[in-house]
């Protein structure tokens, strides 16, 4: 049996993670079109760095989070970008309200909230992605939940 080729390994990672990464990017940007672009961009960077990346799924997720953060910073200064958030089909009122409140959270709080409650990552993994200590992650999650709790009806 021969070892899988580089292309096969890369393809394995891509097939297994592209949907999850696109959804993750959507939850962070609010735009399906942007999410698809950024997710593909993250995988393209993985392809370029494949030989030196030890943990490809983690690498893609980390690059994606950074791409989303940079897109949001850019969108904040460009109204035409920020308008790209999708018009959504109405959901139950609780879901719509919570989604609106999540989107109003500052980026550092929203990112850790999505990674914790959508990706189900522990604080140590989130810390590695966003580049802070696990305790800082827990603090941000706590602050995010407190804000949501204050504003929820």
């Amino acid at each position: 049996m021969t070892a899988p080729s580089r292309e096969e390994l890369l393809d394995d990672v891509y097939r297994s993670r592209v949907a999850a990464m696109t959804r993750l990017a959507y939850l962070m940007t609010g735009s399906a079109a942007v999410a698809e672009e950024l997710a593909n961009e993250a995988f393209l960077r993985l392809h370029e760095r494949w030989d030196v990346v030890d943990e490809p799924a983690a690498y893609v997720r980390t690059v994606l989070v950074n791409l989303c953060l940079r897109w949001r910073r850019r969108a904040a200064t460009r109204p035409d970008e920020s308008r790209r958030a999708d018009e959504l089909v109405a959901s139950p009122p609780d879901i719509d309200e919570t989604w609106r409140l999540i989107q109003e959270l500052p980026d550092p709080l929203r990112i850790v909230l999505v990674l914790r409650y959508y990706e189900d990552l522990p604080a140590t993994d989130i810390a590695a992605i966003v580049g802070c200590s696990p305790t800082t992650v827990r603090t941000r999650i706590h602050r995010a939940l407190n804000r949501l709790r204050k504003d929820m009806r």
Partner: protein
Amino acid sequence: MSHRPSRHVVEDRVRATLRERSNDVQVDGRAAQAPGTASPRLDPMDAPERVERRRGSRRSVAIAAVGIAAGSAIVVATATTLAPDGDTADRAAVTATSPSTTAVPFDCGTALPIALRVPSATRGPIDGPAPGAPPASEGQLVTHWLRADGPVELRWPASPPLPFGPKTSSASVVDAMTASSPDHMEIDVMRTPAPGEMATWTGADVVVDRVPAPVATPPLQCDVMQLTIVTTDGQWLAGLRVTPPEQGMPVETVDLQPTVVERRAVDTAPDVAVRCEGDGRSARPPNRSRGPEPSVRGDEPVDVLTQYIARTPGTARSGYIEMTEPDGSITYASDSGRGWSVLVFVGRDAAGGWSLQGSNTSGC
């Protein structure tokens, strides 16, 4: 009278909302192909064309286009921004300037860079180490408070993280830190709940306030304080570093846990890390393996681990278990809670030192 939902209810609503909204995106990963595998949607040979197409599109994402054009340079820049709070750099600074806890005298002054109060204390502040704690290093300010559940101790500057030492963390503390303003943070020690019960807050146990008139920027080895809270279920240890007001909290935490927290003699060490669990919707990504790297070496096995950590962004930085096999080879393992997620293999080299024999990581 209005009732705010409990934390538990908020968490459930957040989970439900994210799951519901994630369904807005329809992606069929099974039909897609990876970059570099003749994918019609993401062929790297197509990159320049994609750049041009994006430049002409209102939907372009500037960072993406630059990323393709500049290739690895941009990726390196991305990697360096993965730790925006400088956690890694500061930890390195502390260890580099203070190789021994007791050998190097500190000169950080006498005014703490924060104001710290312990409302739940029965006594304090009391100069000197808490009962049972190590003595202060020369020049290190140490003070403590006594509480019913155990003491709180603050050291400035922090003692350097040990390459080997017991893990010090307490689940009753770390989930209850909150910053209500850029100048004020509270750390609440939660009582460990009985099985089936919710954890309860009993009020702020430690209060951190920004000092109104900041002292001059301290030397690098003085920028981290060390806070230890002893609770009924263990001990919590963290570094605290003063942050700029725009960060929204007076201090951020710095990992001071030892690199290696346990040593074991084993017949056979694990050689394959647990596979990534994924998100339940798709297959799991494969593990990654790395072969021998003779240049990653040192006089002691832990030196090799330290170099591996420094060269591997995103990997666990503390909490490793050192496993020694009968032939003397050593495996460092990091437990993610689901199994070994990082395995670093270290062995003797021809020069009488130790070098990296390989690694296996879960890739998630």
